[in-house]
């Protein structure tokens, strides 16, 4: 039986060994001594265990901190991408409906006048191009409610597009729009129908790929009209297999959601209701456009910041002022 050495390794040396702070010579000396000294070997093991456990905690802290920083940086970018996608989705829906409308009535519809320049008319004054009263599209025969007809295209109101002042800044636009008066109750648009563009996004850590997947789905024209409704498309990313769902559909006025959230105001004065639903980790942003947009507007659709949490979605000459709701507010709006 070998005798245990009379001297033992100093605790400072043990700590430095556990920290990997000894040079090769010192380390070999420690290991050589410990191999013949059970007490030192046990102390060495205990020291290494403490160091390993504390480092484990340190790694976990750093990982959690890193995750928070990544999330904090990605959250605004994700919102922007969602909004841009929602705007494009609206435009796609509008464009499709525009051409569907041509097919039905034989000639293109003209955009409706802005609220600020149009008078609220009773339902019986709202007429189609063929002279009939406003009614359903896409298989619905329900008449448009009178209160919702004010934005409707009327025979007495030709299209009006106010040219935007090139020099006006986004903040000035914001200010003028905000001072244009309180939001009025939601109204339905063209012949009692709204173009609804919804983008559902489940946040992950690969937004760039999601975005490219979304773009591919849109550019591939993956939407089709079924029984008067534009069904959604599922974009699958070939690399990741991740899916992003789009639901684009034309809704009759009667099918508008009972609770419409924050109203948005077009630069021309038209109100656009918007809604944000948050369910679990999925956020759904919906803009309801009261008019139809064509493919040219789709190509030019853009989103830019107007300061703070406000953005302007531009569809051709039309502008939608959109205020990104907070997470808490979004949850309430969705209820």
């Amino acid at each position, binding site marked *: 039986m070998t005798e245990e050495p009379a001297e033992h390794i100093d605790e400072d040396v043990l700590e430095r060994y556990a920290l990997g702070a000894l040079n090769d010579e010192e380390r070999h000396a420690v290991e050589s001594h410990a191999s013949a000294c059970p007490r030192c070997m046990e102390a060495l*093991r205990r020291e290494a265990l*403490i*160091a390993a456990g504390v480092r484990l905690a340190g790694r976990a802290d*750093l990982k959690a901190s890193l995750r928070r920083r990544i999330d904090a940086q990605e959250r605004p970018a994700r919102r922007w991408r969602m909004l841009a996608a929602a705007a494009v989705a609206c435009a796609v829906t509008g464009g499709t409906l525009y051409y569907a409308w041509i097919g039905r009535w034989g000639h293109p519809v003209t955009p409706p006048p802005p609220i600020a320049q149009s008078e609220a008319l009773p339902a019986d004054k709202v007429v189609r191009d063929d002279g009939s009263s406003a009614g359903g599209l896409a298989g619905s025969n329900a008449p448009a409610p009178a209160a919702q007809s004010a934005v409707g295209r009327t025979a007495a109101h030709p299209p009006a597009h106010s040219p935007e002042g090139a020099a006006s800044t986004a903040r000035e636009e914001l200010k003028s729009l905000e001072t244009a008066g309180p939001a009025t109750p939601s109204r339905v648009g063209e012949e009692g129908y709204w173009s609804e563009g919804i983008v559902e996004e489940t946040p992950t850590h690969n937004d760039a790929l999601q975005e490219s997947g979304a773009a591919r789905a849109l550019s591939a024209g993956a939407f089709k009209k079924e029984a008067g409704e534009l069904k959604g498309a599922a974009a699958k990313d070939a690399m990741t297999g991740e899916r992003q769902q789009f639901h684009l559909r034309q809704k009759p006025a009667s099918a508008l959601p009972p609770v419409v959230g924050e109203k948005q105001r077009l630069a021309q004065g038209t109100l656009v209701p918007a809604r944000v639903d948050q369910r679990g980790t999925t956020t759904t942003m919906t803009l309801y456009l009261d008019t139809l947009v064509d493919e040219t507007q789709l190509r030019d659709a853009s989103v830019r910041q107007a300061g703070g949490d406000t953005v302007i979605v531009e569809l051709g000459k039309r502008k939608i002022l959109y205020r990104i709701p907070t997470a808490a507010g979004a949850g309430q709006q969705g209820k």
Partner: protein
Amino acid sequence: MADPLPFASRDAALIDRIGKGEEDALVELYRENRRPVEALVTRSGGRKEDADDVLQEALVALWESVRSGRFRLSARLGTYIYATARNIWLRRRVRMRRETTGEVADPPDGEASPLELAIGEEEASIVREALEALGEPCRTILLLYYWEEESMETIASRLGMANADTVKSRKYQCKKALEARVKRRIDRND
């Protein structure tokens, strides 16, 4: 003379920032390396969440290596991170397979010492839990010493303690308290 490694200056700047404790440098590296690591992991049956976790672990390993002064920049930083992530992912896959099939072979680990290898993850987790239960300021003192590898003087300065000797004495007490807690937990588990 032209720089033989044109990417080196940017990588060196990032390493320098990590050395100073700037976590934002890790966020930059995360963004830059996310796609290749995702491709690596998803190609071999992993999920995006796995890739995310593996990349974060690789970045933490980089941080640890740089902060301890052991890191030497000999290749592109992206290559280093990718290689580290690949090793982590391979080890994880071997462990998953072992858990599924009951294999006992351990994956090779070039960085760990024999002593570290002798310490199981379970034991290290017990220490971590005991550390959390220890509370402050012991938790921070031990983290600064063993994880951040700060000197006694720096710890005294960061925690507003009188001097290095005060820290050394307090650290000793904290370590003994931690060892006692760990021993109790291990005995209880036995």
